């Protein structure tokens, strides 16, 4: 594949040189071949080519999992000019190994980038420098069956007690309050992150994922106590350890479960499972500690320039181009997500986007997600611990002590 693309690049280069003078190639490795993401990305590329006819864009699209493996090879062996990747701790290994280009100059000189990305800038920053440009992000929260809530006379909960009350009513009606599938672990991290953000706030989330406070800290224990209450009164579907997040949609779609702590990318899957716009809705995870500033999970997807790129000049042009409000608005309208540019228009016809925009734009802080904020090894051990806790809440102390041990080693 890479060899083929090199050959193609070579061929195209020779053609380009002979026909259009000075045409430069710009190679982009993108990581989502699904119809909507592909369409959104290709539209942005087409717009760039129209604005910069002297640049010849070559696109390689791989699927997400393959991209995660391939990036480790192509960054050193055959670097593209731009690659898709994730901010937060996920970019840390490549930044630290010197494989991503420092683009702080672009963030400083481009007035759009320097002004309209304030909220997301910290997650693109490492060692005080910026390394990529985000093109999309999405909110997390509680997706719920509004029809079931209505049938059982349940109001949308805004506080912890209201949530527990809603769970009581759902259980009395024979409905499991929450669905989840923890086979691939990260879904449990979403629940933990929210309990931690609502119990202790944004700073504790960051301190924990940065290894500055222990898992046996009283504040983290308090979050786990709330989780135990939630497991008890707001039970989750049984057998969640054998289900993926898509499998867990089945009980949600057939009315056995009524709520789902999830990211906005899941909306399309609910609709595919036969649910209509009138049956599903979204609310922010309810307040637990009164008066605590509300922080949200909002993972971003971004584009980076590898330090081995051949055409860094045009790559910078491309990143600045896709950071523009109109481009970000159009792109995210196609893929049903939120544009990180605060001046970008959003799709007013999509109620999840309207609510999601409201949710994240008024948030006091944006977390990336447990497995993007914490280093990979810690994230893996942590998420296994969360899954174990959901099945055996009585093992809490044992799990937290084990996580302390891992933490000590990972952050040494």
């Amino acid at each position: 594949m890479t060899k083929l693309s090199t050959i193609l690049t070579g061929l195209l280069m020779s053609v380009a040189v002979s026909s259009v003078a000075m045409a430069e190639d710009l190679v982009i490795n993108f990581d989502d071949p699904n119809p909507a993401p592909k369409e959104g990305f290709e539209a942005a590329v087409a717009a760039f080519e129209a604005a910069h006819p002297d640049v010849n864009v070559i696109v390689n699209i791989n699927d997400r999992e393959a991209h995660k493996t391939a990036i480790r090879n192509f960054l050193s062996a055959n670097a593209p000019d731009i690659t898709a990747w994730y901010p937060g701790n996920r970019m840390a290994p490549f930044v630290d190994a010197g494989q991503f280009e420092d683009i702080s100059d672009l963030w400083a000189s481009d007035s759009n980038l320097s002004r309209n990305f304030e909220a997301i800038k910290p997650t693109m920053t490492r060692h005080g420098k910026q390394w990529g440009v985000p093109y999309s992000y999405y909110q997390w929260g509680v997706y719920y069956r509004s029809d079931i809530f209505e049938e059982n006379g349940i109001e949308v909960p805004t506080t912890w007690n209201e949530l527990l009350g809603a769970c009581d009513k759902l259980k009395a009606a024979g409905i499991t309050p929450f669905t989840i599938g923890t086979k691939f672990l990260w879904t449990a991290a979403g629940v933990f992150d929210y309990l931690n953000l609502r119990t202790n706030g944004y700073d504790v989330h960051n301190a924990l994922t940065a290894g500055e406070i222990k898992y046996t800290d009283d504040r983290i224990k308090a979050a786990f106590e709330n989780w135990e209450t939630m497991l008890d009164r707001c039970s989750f579907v049984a057998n969640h350890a054998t289900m993926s997040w898509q499998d867990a949609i089945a009980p949600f779609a057939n009315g056995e479960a009524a709520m789902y702590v999830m990211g906005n990318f899941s909306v399309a899957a609910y609709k595919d499972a036969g649910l209509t716009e009138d049956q599903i809705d979204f609310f922010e995870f309810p307040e637990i500690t009164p008066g605590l500033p509300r922080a949200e999970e909002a993972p971003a997807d971004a584009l980076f320039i590898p330090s081995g790129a051949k055409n860094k000049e045009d790559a910078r042009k491309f990143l600045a181009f896709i950071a523009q409000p109109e481009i970000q608005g159009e792109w995210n309208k196609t893929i049903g997500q939120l544009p990180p540019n605060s001046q970008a228009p959003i799709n007013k016809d999509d109620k999840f986007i309207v609510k999601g925009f409201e949710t994240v734009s008024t948030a006091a802080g944006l977390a990336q997600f447990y497995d993007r904020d914490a280093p990979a090894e810690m994230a893996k051990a942590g998420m296994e611990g969360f899954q174990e806790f959901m099945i055996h809440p009585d093992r809490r102390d044992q799990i937290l002590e084990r996580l302390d041990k891992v933490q000590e080693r990972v952050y040494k």
Partner: protein
Amino acid sequence: MQTKHSNGWLRANRQKIAPWVFLAPAMLFFTVYVIAPIFQSMWYSFYAWDGIGEKEWIGWGNYIELFDDDRFYVSLKNNVIWLLLYMLAVPAGLFVALFLNQNVWGMRFYKSMFFFPFVISQVVVGLIFTWFYNPNFGIVAVVWEFFGATPPSILGDERFVTYGIIFAGLWPQVAYCMILYLTGLNNVSTDQIEAGRLDGARGWRMLRYVILPQLWPATFLAIVVTVIGALRSFDMIAIMTQGGPYGSSNVLSYFMFEQALSEYGFRMGYGSSISVILFLIMMVFICYFLWVMYQEDRRG
């Protein structure tokens, strides 16, 4: 003169040289792709390395961490369970082979049906059993609910998960052992059976003292492939549970993959140290098998 001389030497020794010439390509690839990586892994196991950054020499650090890692002991314990229970494939394969070793109309069809699970990919076997075990719509759920019981979540419960995967793994492994025994049974000498029958041996005694000794080569082969199969049980776990729930169905091979190559891994040094331990365990068996074969060779 010179060429004639070397030509003459080649000619004189071609009986000795020919095998080496034929072996050379295989030996070259075996060295480059098997032997060398073994030593490379051992070398890496003394480093902390994420695969892209700087390697850092930490001596026995990875091993010290490994022997203090609960997940290592869980994996090791599961490996032992795999080894013990996977051995059931040998007698089960023998039983099926004896059962199928008769001349009935359509026997070829039955034989091929019994051999079928070995032909299909392990990935498919894993998927099929994942669905069987599904407590919501799987066959396990149907059977349990028929008796009015709540179906167990076999792959979601740390107590059952390893056994569930081994059971799935036995299906193709029994087929493999069966085919080994079926070929073995073809070669059982009829003279000896006749002689045994004349001496009044039948049933169990016939099997134990006449048939089984003649099947020893097949048995030995079945044991070897089953031990190897148990130790490298990787694909089933990757497909069915990914080592979960919370690492309780891990085995060393998957644990190594998870640490070195999965999304949350890229600890090449630590992964290498796990693979070195796995290699040492395998070496015990390999040496034993080689010793047995050597002894048999000597006996002639």
